[in-house]
């Protein structure tokens, strides 16, 4: 999952990015509305975290210019918690709303819920060949036994599971799971896939040479 954090306060931007990265998201950052709008328009992201009060373009303006073409879910962050502000946010096309100061666990949970909703999956649990993925808890278990995965491994497996039966190209996986600051060493993905096969069994992920990976 790739997220864009648009926040002008450098401290908060760094903190949010770090939190989201540790939760397994790929995170890009934008320091003002203009940059945020430019990056968001690429359409690479699974969700946006958008601050309202920003220089150049504020959150509302970013949302307005983004909205008709891009359906990416947007979570607004605001320092003002008045009801008219919330209504304005939801009317402009924000999908969710958080008032500063917020709990970062809540932010992560809401982002996950947003992404899940827009991908059409309302169930937070996916079952694949006896493996149970709980997207809310970000855990994987087999026969009630939890299997330890790193955040990146989990994200990779979840992405493939959500697109079960499709062949997902390597470049798409890089786009979705790695942020712009990652050194996209071409074997990084292979390392994660081989780790997953070691933990879950060799046949769980099939490789279509020249095309990508797939969970049958």
């Amino acid at each position, binding site marked *: 999952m790739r997220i864009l954090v648009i926040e*002008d*306060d*450098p*401290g*908060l931007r*760094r*903190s*949010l990015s*770090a*939190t989201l990265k*540790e939760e397994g998201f790929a995170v890009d950052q934008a*320091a*003002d509305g203009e940059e945020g709008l430019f990056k968001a328009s690429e359409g690479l992201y699974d969700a946006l975290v958008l601050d309202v*009060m*920003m*220089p150049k373009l504020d959150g509302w303006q970013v949302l307005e210019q983004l909205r008709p073409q891009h359906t990416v879910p947007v979570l607004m962050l605001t*320092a*003002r918690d008045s009801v008219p502000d919330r209504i304005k946010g939801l009317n402009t096309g924000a999908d969710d709303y958080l*008032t*500063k*100061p*917020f*709990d*970062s*666990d809540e*932010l992560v949970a809401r982002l996950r819920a947003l992404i899940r909703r827009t991908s059409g999956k309302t169930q937070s649990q996916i079952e694949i060949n006896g493996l149970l993925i709980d997207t809310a808890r970000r855990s994987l278990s087999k026969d009630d036994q939890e299997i330890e995965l790193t955040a990146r491994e989990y994200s990779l497996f979840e992405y493939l599971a959500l697109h079960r039966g499709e062949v997902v190209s390597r470049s798409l996986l890089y786009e979705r799971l790695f942020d712009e600051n990652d050194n996209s060493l071409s074997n990084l993905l292979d390392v994660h896939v081989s780790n997953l096969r070691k933990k879950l069994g060799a046949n769980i992920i099939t490789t279509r040479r020249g095309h990508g990976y797939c969970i049958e």
Partner: protein
Amino acid sequence: MKRPFQSIRWRIQVWHGLILFIAIAAFCMTAYQLAWLNQSRRIDREIQRHERQLFKSLIEANESYFSERNNGNKRIPFPEELYQIFETGKIQLPEEALNEFSGNASGYYYFAFANADGELLLKSENAPDQLSFLPLPDEVGMQEEFRTHGNLRESAHSFNFGFRIIIGHDIQSELEEKHRFGWSLGASGSGLWLIGLLGGWWLAGKAIRPIQFISQTATRIAEGNLNERINTAGTDSELDQLSHVLNHSFDRLNAILEQQRQFTADASHELRTPLTILLSESQRMRKRGIMRNAEDYQESFELCHDAATRMRHLVESLLLLARQDDGYAPLATVDCDLATIIQKSIKLHQALAETKAVKLQAELPNCPLTANPDLLAIVFNNLVGNAVQHHQGNGLVQIKLTHSPNAIIVNISDDGPGISTEALPRIFDRFYRADLSRSDAHAGHSGLGLALAQTIIRNMGGKIEVSSKLSQGSTFTATLPTSSKT
């Protein structure tokens, strides 16, 4: 519930009723008196007419006697002669004329004649038994009087030679008429009074209604509906003026309240971002199961420290501002040198200025004054700091101190980016930031600096002014009186 006599409407009503009552009563009394006076005069004239008639017929009846005494000369006899004829008892009585002075039917007339000793010479049969004749006049010829005994009106005469006459008239019917007139006056007066009272009640109500309306609106406003205003009719009446005054007060109160609300909202808004950083970082670092190295922790603590420093700076500024606002506990003043204070501020920003290639040029002659050096340091740290921090780099900031016997003037001018005309009037507002940007919102940047500087200088009796042109630079001018209060 209010007691009725405390209400203005009731008081107006009571006074109105009282005054109206006095006026109507006075009018009725006067009318009554005048009417009776008129009536009395008519009665008296009537009595006089009857008197003349009686004498005329008496003289006619005794004409022969008089002509004999006057040797055949025909002339009207003197009263003395008439008296003598009584005395002699040779009087002839005109029966016909005497008919008028008889009977007891309503409105009858009577007469009586007496001599000097009070002996009755002659009286009509219907005359009352008790007759009080006038005493004889002392010297002059005659004395006369009209008087009322019960329901009888009499005209009494006495002559110095002893002749005394009473002609009387029964005025029973006139008295009854007088009473009837009195009653009808009283009744119509009361009726008038009642109508007046009703009119007064209505008028008082009408006069009071706008006041009630104003009071109701004011109550609603006081209960919290601060945007409502009293309707003014635009007639510029006294009540309209009152409404205007009240509305104006409400406007001012509302503005102050709104300002306060805005300030609180801004202050909490400013605190939210660093608080979010603290929360999110501490939560992140608390999480188990993630491999971290020392650098990660170092970075996180730096973020936390920056956020906490921002909050501390903000809280200190707010506290200082609040204290400066209500003039609470003026800080101790000492003899100090403004040049030294500004020099320190310049030193504080020297490093940043050097990295931005901004030259700080100061012209600071010694300037002793009595003030609180800490407060002055806050002011000039802000002014010099702003000039350096907002500078785009490669330029000059000039600080010039001049003092005359009346005032101390500090000019701080830069060739930085300048301030737009829209932003210029607002830069002293609390939490206002011309660029809206928090991207360089490090510890020293709360949006309170200029507000604080202005409040401090104002409390010292001075002022801060600013002139600026976009992309040419700004000049801040602080003027202080030579004898500072703070």
